[in-house]
């Protein structure tokens, strides 16, 4: 596959996934802000979380100063100047898709294109109350895109690069959400709270569609340790780090090829650590340290994937000239 094609497929999937995750993060902030039980602190305290998770607190601060519900929501949803906004993600996803229209199915293209057109129509008339519906819509479109992808595309390396983008981005996001929210919610791991905590942890779980899974698995009150275990180590939880790295490693093995040894090694190493890891050890190291390390690792992995496949530029090893003389002879006689 053309390197540029692989690059566009990878980023198309990442951008869609990122748009979905941004919508999830904002959705939780919205829900939380409606709860009567305020965690100690102000509106700004609550609304810094989505900015921190997506790493766009700096850009926001320059433009708006204090974090306020409406401004943060708009900045992260609609602002063309924000490189991480849903607007930017959907626009870039469409540009990536447009660049490789031939490599994706027409159904996939239509979903991405229609999403972009609909987004532009919708965004003009969004007011604050309508945002929760909008977040649901973004999530729906992302689900739809993945469904259409799996339902229409050939199972070849095009799909592998799409999955690689999806799961690398998802792993990154889950780690960020956990990192930021966990520390807002619980400075001390062994605190087990009352009703307030229940709602707060509940909303964290909901933001990664893990609330129902939690209840099903643990059938118990929400405990921070289990939340972390669920989102890091459980491989049957589709947004957990372990589940994501399962997919990343598997796709790298499918793609394989003459390069990418280091990418496969990094993915394998991280996957093994999640596979055999214990939650006690994660907390022993410190959750924040653990997650920071994980994020550094995935970013390194992303660079390796880029160098090995997406921006591959080989130094050519010269081939014997003999064959070429033959070619010219053949041509001369035609």
């Amino acid at each position, binding site marked *: 596959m053309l390197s*540029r094609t692989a690059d566009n497929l990878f980023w198309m999937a990442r951008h869609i996934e990122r748009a979905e995750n941004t919508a999830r993060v904002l959705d939780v902030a919205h829900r939380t802000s409606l709860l009567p039980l305020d965690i100690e602190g102000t509106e700004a305290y609550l609304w810094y979380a989505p900015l921190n998770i997506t790493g766009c607190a700096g850009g926001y601060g320059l433009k708006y100063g204090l974090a306020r519900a409406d401004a943060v929501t708009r900045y992260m949803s609609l602002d063309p100047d924000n490189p991480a906004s849903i607007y930017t993600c959907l626009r870039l996803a469409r540009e990536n898709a447009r660049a490789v*229209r031939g490599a994706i199915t027409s159904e996939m293209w*239509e979903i991405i294109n229609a999403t972009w057109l609909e987004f532009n129509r919708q965004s003009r008339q969004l007011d604050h109350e309508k945002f929760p519906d909008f977040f649901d819509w973004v999530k729906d479109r992302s689900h739809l895109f993945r469904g259409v992808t799996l339902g229409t595309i050939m199972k070849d390396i095009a799909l592998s690069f799409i999955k690689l983008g999806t799961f690398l981005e998802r792993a990154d996001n889950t780690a960020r959400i956990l990192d930021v929210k966990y520390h807002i919610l619980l400075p001390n791991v062994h605190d087990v709270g009352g009703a307030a905590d229940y709602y707060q942890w509940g909303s964290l779980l909901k933001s990664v569609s893990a609330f129902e899974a939690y209840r099903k698995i643990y059938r118990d009150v929400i405990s921070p340790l289990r939340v972390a275990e669920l989102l890091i180590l459980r491989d049957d939880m589709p947004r957990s780090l372990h589940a994501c790295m399962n997919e990343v490693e598997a796709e790298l093995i499918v793609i394989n090829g003459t390069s990418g040894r280091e990418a496969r090694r990094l993915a394998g190493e991280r996957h093994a650590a999640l596979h055999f890891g214990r939650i006690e050890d994660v907390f022993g190291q410190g959750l924040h340290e653990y997650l920071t390390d994980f994020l550094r690792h995935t970013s390194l992995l992303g660079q390796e994937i880029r160098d090995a496949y997406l921006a*591959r*530029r080989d130094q050519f090893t*010269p081939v014997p000239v003999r064959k070429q003389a033959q*070619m010219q002879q053949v041509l001369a006689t035609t």
Partner: protein
Amino acid sequence: MNTKPTTSYFNEMLTATGAVREIYQRYAHWRQDLPDGLLERKSAEAELLFRRMGITFAVYGEADGAERLIPFDIVPRIFGAAEWRRLEQGIKQRVKALNAFLHDIYHDQEIIKAGVISAHQVLDNVLYRPEMRGLDLPNQVYAHIAGIDLVRVAENEFFVLEDNLRTPSGVSYMLENRKTMMRLFPELFASHAVEPVEHYPQMLLDTLREAAPQFVADPVIVVMTPGSYNSAYFEHAFLASQMGVELVEGQDLFVHQQRVYMHTTEGPQQVHVIYRRVDDDFLDPLAFRPDSTLGVPGLLDAYCSGNVILANGIGTGVADDKSTYLHVPDMISFYLGEKPLLSNVPTWRLSESEDLKYVLAHLPELVVKEVQGSGGYGMLIGPTSSKAQIEAYKLRILSEPANFIAQPTLALSTCPTLVESGVAPRHVDLRPFVLSGKDVRLAPGGLTRVALGEGSLVVNSSQGGGTKDTWVLED
């Protein structure tokens, strides 16, 4: 032949007495029974389909670079089997002669030696590429893909308006128009035996395979685009995906030891045939425009070594230039020994002082074009221009008369078209797409372009023209 501006035009659907031509009778009958407003609704639906599919193009020079749709008209343009057969023969004949001409002028130049065309006309043309001299191409084909623009002035009278031998575009619209029509009006296709066009991508792929260097058993073929900001990008991506080949940009290719490779996730892969939609000038910064970032350094060298085939070849522009156009009927007799089946539009060359004098005196009746212009830019249509426009154009002509040709304003046929006021006649032309490999072949029909403004004769999409589905009925 009626070359004077006139109010009576050949109507594709109706005879002079107002009766419906036989080939349109079923269609006319179907339309009679339609409920009010149905065509308008279907037309809106079609626009939505096109927008959702992203079948858009960029218009050069528009500030926001917004993507626009080419208006699609839902009334088909219909050809009968017999009239199409005649047309098809004429088109094939013409393209054969043009390829023979290109082979000749880059080899022995017999046509110049025979005095049919002057050496000046060929060799001093800026589009003549001396680099191509002596290069042997498989099947002696230079223009693998040609678009021949035709207009109709009477039941049995067609003229060739121009030949497009460089990177003719529009075929994706031919295919998408058909797809859309079949979706909107399945019942029409049940009641009409319309020749399919859907196999065009397969024909194109076959043509490109046949064009491959002969030492390659299973050639690697790619489509090369200037990039996603090009106005015809949709078509490039569309054709690549329909043929199942890679769509590459210049940056994806490199030349090593006179061979062309593409950067893939598996390392370099050799490429044998490039269906390039990049103009000659931008193909290779080492050989042509050094500032081109769209091309591949060393590509010309690889091409001249016979290790890669470009479709179309380099230097085909010399044969579709509007001053060479005049000589195509001579080429047909010279190379094929046949009588031309399709006529040229009578043309005045303003490099000739007699012609110049006549044209300057008759500007309000004539169409004047730049010799190397295309896309409907920079032309003067006398009958629809103001005095001031004509005077301004006159000055342009006088500054460099040899850059212009003039033709009578043709009475382009009209075809019923859905416009705001209902269905009304609008002028149309036709661009069939001709593929040359071991044989010359073309999909039945082509792209019908329609000038949407009342009385307008300019069909180019860049000038607000639309397109129609073109049907060739089976016998």
